[in-house]
């Protein structure tokens, strides 16, 4: 029996909601293990991210300003919502705006306390959003020019994958993924290691359950971003689907390698760099595409 379109949509939504965080958490575990191996260490168990979140859930949630808990909750809800729109096959533009909105609530949550680390982290997070936004918007425009639709389900049904028309946009998107995954050299807002210049930046003031919620929200976000990488390769052709899955994991691996080989840069480098890449690769690609078609 062939599944109707609605059934597929609801199925993928449920898979995202239930399995999403587990897959992302597991990938995070793999990430930490590979990182450890690159540094000549054994590394933590693969399920370590789940142990961490489980522990944080059991800890006391010390909050200075109670609106922080509220903002963190909204951040989680919007992060889930963003992915839900994507996996329901809806409008890509809506996904992008909801993603930004979720990020803004995280910034607010970090800003409601009077901690210099947290506030610097929040400021830097805003700068990072400023840096990655053009490339993300170009991604949506690229999909439209390549497939004639902003709708995820329509893009999935295209005969040839979007990557063939938008390789430049893909490069711009992959470039800013490092910001989105909060990986070095672009992990300015939250240093991956807590004993560095701004402690944990944006997450410094979160404790216990609030930190666990932020972590879970980040897992949902990771799945969404991996989904967006895959979308570049999505088509009705099975070979392209397989290539897409392979590339998605390959890019995740490349992110780990980059994380381990680059030192953190200053914010102007991030902003100017990602805007330049977005302009040089993304814009040029779109200009060519619109003139040719």
């Amino acid at each position: 029996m062939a599944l109707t379109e609605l059934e597929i949509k609801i199925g993928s939504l449920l898979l995202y909601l239930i399995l999403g965080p587990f897959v992302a958490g597991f990938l995070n575990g793999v990430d930490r293990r590979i990182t450890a191996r690159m540094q000549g260490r054994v590394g933590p168990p693969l399920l370590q991210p789940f142990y961490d979140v489980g522990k944080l859930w059991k800890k006391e949630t010390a909050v200075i300003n109670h609106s922080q808990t509220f903002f963190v909750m909204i951040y989680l809800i919007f992060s889930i919502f963003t992915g839900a729109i994507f996996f329901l096959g809806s409008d890509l533009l809506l996904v992008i705006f909801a993603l930004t909105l979720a990020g803004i609530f995280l910034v607010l949550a970090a800003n409601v306390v009077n901690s210099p680390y947290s506030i610097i982290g929040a400021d830097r997070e805003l700068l990072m959003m400023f840096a990655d936004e053009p490339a993300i918007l170009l991604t949506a425009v690229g999909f439209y020019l390549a497939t004639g639709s902003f709708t995820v389900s329509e893009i999935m049904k295209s005969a040839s994958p979007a990557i063939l028309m938008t390789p430049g946009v893909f490069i711009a998107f992959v470039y800013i993924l490092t910001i989105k995954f909060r990986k070095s050299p672009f992990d300015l807002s939250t240093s991956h290691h807590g004993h560095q210049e701004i402690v944990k930046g944006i997450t410094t003031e979160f404790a216990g359950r609030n930190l666990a919620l932020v972590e879970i929200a980040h897992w949902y976000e990771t799945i969404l971003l991996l989904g967006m990488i895959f979308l570049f390769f999505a088509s009705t052709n099975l070979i392209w689907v397989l290539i897409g899955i392979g590339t998605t994991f390959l890019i995740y691996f490349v992110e780990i390698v980059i994380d381990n080989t680059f030192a953190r840069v200053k914010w102007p480098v991030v902003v100017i760099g990602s805007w330049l890449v977005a302009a040089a690769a993304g814009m040029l690609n779109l200009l060519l595409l619109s003139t040719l078609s």
Partner: protein
Amino acid sequence: MKVSRSPWILHYDASSCNGCDIEVLACLTPLYDVERFGVINTGNPKHADILLVTGSVNEQNRPVLQQLYDQMPNPKVVVAVGICATSGGIFAECYNILGGIDKVLPVDLYVMGCAARPEAIIDGVVKAVALLDQKSAQLKKTKKNRKEAR
């Protein structure tokens, strides 16, 4: 999920000669790699479960130490690393030294040595982790009792 599965450490150098501090950091290097047990060296009291203190406490850092301890969410464990943190060591008689960490904070575990060897520190952390589980169970019990009392 047991708390002991992911003990996050906050390392504070009270007035150590840096000997014990280097040994604490050695625990994180490829040779000892405590991240095998999920241990992370976080510089943030709000994320930490175990407070590792090296060196003896003096008037200058007493409020800092107290502040760090107060900012850590429950359950938490304090480990005094090295002889100075335990009793003041050779600095015990100095005019500004108050003595070991237990003069200021309720210390749960003492790790001996000058400097404490990484093996000893890891041993201390493993014991601290077991204590963390106990304290976590206790915390759960008190919470439950409080709820019932209401």
